[in-house]
């Protein structure tokens, strides 16, 4: 019945969002003209700079605040942010890499079984909210971790949290709850094996 310890859940981090400051005013026009791989959005007053190596997209404001998205791990996010600051420094700005903070981590997790959402919602009243007409997933919030999970009936779960650790903890927390709700044990075992074979 509880096979949580046997199943190794693969939690894939798909997106890490971080912010940092350069502590100096940035001239967006100069970045747009001289920087490489930049998109200048003059109407909103920001510059997008895309990096290849850690595939990240940074939104740069003239105030010196930079938001970095697209990284797949926290280390990569920091690495990409530093590389971005480095390229800004090469453009001539006196950049100081400060206030680096990972603000959001998005991960997906696949449960090897289907989940019955209405029952799940009934059993987890305060934390789960389900509006099938609006969205096909159950929105489960863990307040202590400040994490939000979206649980789909297919067993796919999307987790967003402030950092990777919170995300992993949230998945571990939710697993026993959803485990009971799978369609049927035997059936799911078949599906589980099948999904394993597909990988």
């Amino acid at each position, binding site marked *: 019945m509880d096979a949580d310890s046997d199943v190794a859940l693969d939690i894939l981090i798909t997106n890490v969002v971080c912010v940092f400051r350069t502590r100096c005013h940035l001239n967006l026009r100069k970045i747009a003209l001289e920087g*490489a791989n930049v998109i200048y959005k003059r109407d909103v007053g920001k510059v997008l700079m895309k990096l290849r190596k850690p595939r990240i997209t940074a939104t740069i404001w003239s105030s010196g605040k930079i938001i970095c998205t697209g990284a797949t791990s926290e280390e990569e996010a920091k690495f990409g942010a530093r590389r971005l600051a480095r390229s800004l420094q090469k453009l001539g700005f*006196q950049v*100081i890499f400060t206030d680096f903070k990972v603000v959001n981590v998005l991960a997906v997790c696949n449960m090897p079984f289907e989940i019955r959402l209405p029952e799940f919602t009934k059993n987890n009243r305060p934390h789960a909210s389900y509006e099938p007409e609006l969205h096909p997933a159950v929105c489960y919030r863990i307040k202590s971790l400040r994490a939000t999970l979206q649980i789909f009936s297919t067993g796919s779960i999307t987790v967003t949290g402030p950092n990777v650790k919170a995300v992993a903890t949230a998945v571990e927390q939710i697993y026993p709850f959803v485990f009971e709700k799978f369609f049927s044990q035997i059936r799911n075992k078949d599906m589980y094996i099948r999904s394993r074979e597909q990988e």
Partner: protein
Amino acid sequence: MAGDNPVLWETKVLQSRATEDFFGNSIRLPFFTLPLPHTLHQTLQSSTASLVVPASRTLPGCTPAELDTARSGASFAFPGCPIYVPAGVTLQTASGQLYKVNVPIIVTQTSGRPSALQHPVQVLQQLGPPAVIQGSVPQLSPCSLQAAAERSRGVDAVPQQLTVPACGPVGRKNLGNATSDGCAPPGWEHGVRSAALLSENSPCAHGSGAAFPSWAAPAGPSAEPALSAPAAGRRRLLGGSLPAAGPQGTPHHQVALSSQLTDDDINRIIQVDGTGDASSNEEVGNVRDAEENEFLQIIDAGDLKVLEEAADSTSSEDSTASSSDDEGPEVALVDEDPLNSGDDVSEQDVPDLFDTDNVIVCQYDKIHRNKNKWKFYLKDGVMCFGGRDYVFAKAIGDAEW
């Protein structure tokens, strides 16, 4: 209105550079000058006994003899040098206009030559406090009133100029000077502080020197407030130095300061980008700097040390040689260590993509991007490709980044 805040007004006038032409150039007449005909007809009252003496003493170039004669009321041929006229003198120009001088003044004839004007300035400096000082501390407001009065009469080009350091409400002639500064300097320069009363029925009908016509226009009511404040003369006098007339109390600074001080306030680089942004300066506190500097990086005082070390790393930016020795002292200052040239970040890969001979010069209809897929809808262009030139009216392209 003028009397309310003449100092402020004067500041604004000079800051607005409206008078730049007049006072930025030392050649211009720095002080207030009255136009006078070539022959100055003076009528001296008996109280002006000391008229001649100081003049001869302080005006080496002048001929005091003429003054003596003038003292008796004879017509006076204006010499080429300034004349010191003590208080109580009634001057009458050839056209019959009368000036009653209650303050010692210096009359200079300016024929448009700057050199002639310098004399009174120098002379005045040697001049001690005028023997006769009437009235209280220089009330420049009277001077301004004169200016206004004269201004209203219309200013014509006058052949000569009479610089009168008038400080009293006098019907000034032909103000000529563009701003209050002009009014004030004459008084200052001549060491006259007390109110000079010139009869109002002395319109300035005489042509002025070269400098006058150019001054005529902006003069007038503007001069009023400027004169009213002794501080005005102190601050904005150009082309001359204020003699240290003692009792007046107002500091007689070197006039030369002029408007150079005000330019600094205006020479701020204006930022055209990022309006409405709040610079990241809560901790640093460089709000002022962020707004001013458009292109250059602002180095806050608090971060100077960090930046210096960061600058050290930028100096070796092109090389991947690491300057990791910077880390130690920097960490102590800021939480996050600054970027080191080779430590964390490496050189961008393939930076020479633009080094190509295939060039397209065209106009674009639409450039679209979806994730890393780009679509180009171009028109009216010339393309140099593979060494050959192509011309197109429309071009569609796809690219992946």
